[in-house]
């Protein structure tokens, strides 16, 4: 059970690809900073293809800052900083892809 | 005989490590050793040369545990102990021997 964070845009970095290769069914993925561009519904085919067991999150402050509020794939749950902390507690380990 | 940093023919930092590692010679080593109140014997030189060889190969100053291990492998089990190294380089053998051997300060900052 690992919380994976990705902070780079999928358009400029392979972070998301590498993360997706090694994501287990029990894991969660949280997109932060420029990583949130991967939650855009024009891009999210790959993440939408993931099994339902894997929960997908996107950090609200980063989504709002980038004007993505109305462009998000419905597969992602939008969470605030407090919920980010909760995820970190819920999952015993984090792997940061940056 | 006492030697101060200002008596050394080469530049050292406030802790006595060489500023330019290329300045090292055996004569410089003798002077640094005097500052540490150590009279270099054949056994000291064996460790100093071993350290320099280690640095040439791996590019780092070894941690104490690794120094002990290397001495044991290269110089024999009777010398490969922290007690033996403590006797040669009292206090903090890995640090002091590295200083005399003209290696950089161990950066692991343990």
């Amino acid at each position, binding site marked *: *059970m*690992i919380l994976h964070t990705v902070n780079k845009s999928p358009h400029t970095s392979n972070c998301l690809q590498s993360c997706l*290769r090694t*994501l287990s069914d029990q894991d969660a993925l949280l997109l932060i900073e420029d990583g949130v561009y991967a939650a855009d519904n024009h891009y999210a085919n790959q993440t939408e293809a993931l099994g339902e067991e894997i929960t997908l999150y996107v950090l609200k402050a980063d989504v709002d800052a980038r004007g993505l509020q109305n462009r998000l794939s419905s597969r992602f749950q939008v969470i605030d900083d407090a919920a980010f902390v909760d995820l970190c507690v819920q999952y015993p*380990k984090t*792997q940061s892809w940056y | 005989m006492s030697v101060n940093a200002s008596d050394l023919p080469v530049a050292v930092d406030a802790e006595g490590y060489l500023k330019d590692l290329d300045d090292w010679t055996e004569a410089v080593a003798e002077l640094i050793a005097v500052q540490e109140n150590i009279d270099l014997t054949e056994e000291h030189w064996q460790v100093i040369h071993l350290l320099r060889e280690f640095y040439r190969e791996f590019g*780092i100053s070894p941690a104490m545990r690794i120094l002990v291990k290397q001495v044991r492998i290269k110089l024999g089990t009777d010398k490969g102990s922290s007690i033996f190294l403590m006797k040669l380089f009292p206090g903090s053998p890995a640090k002091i021997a590295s200083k005399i051997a003209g290696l950089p300060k161990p950066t*692991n900052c*343990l």
Partner: protein
Amino acid sequence: MSTTAKNILAVMRTGPYGNQTAKEALDAVLTAAAFELPLSLLFMDDGVFQLLPQQDTQGIGAKDLSATLPVLPMYDVERFYVEQSSLESRGINSAELILPVEVLDSEQVKVLFAESASILSF
């Protein structure tokens, strides 16, 4: 610190010289090793480039990391893993690398992550 130590997985994902990350990751790894913490290294993405032979850094004025990496077995660090698809997409054969590595496919990497108590992400 080493009595009931948590085993650490260091994930090395950057090439050796484009920035300080690989160098500082290695410093962290050497520190963990000096403390005798149980430690494994996973090289993936551009991190596998750290393991290429024949690195000569004189021309760029950087320290040669490929000279230091082979010191790790002396520190009793012996578990070196590389991710298969990272090797394949870069056309690298694991036999030519400077450390004795075990090649893991994606499923095995998942297991490696799962079995580690603490992850250092570089």
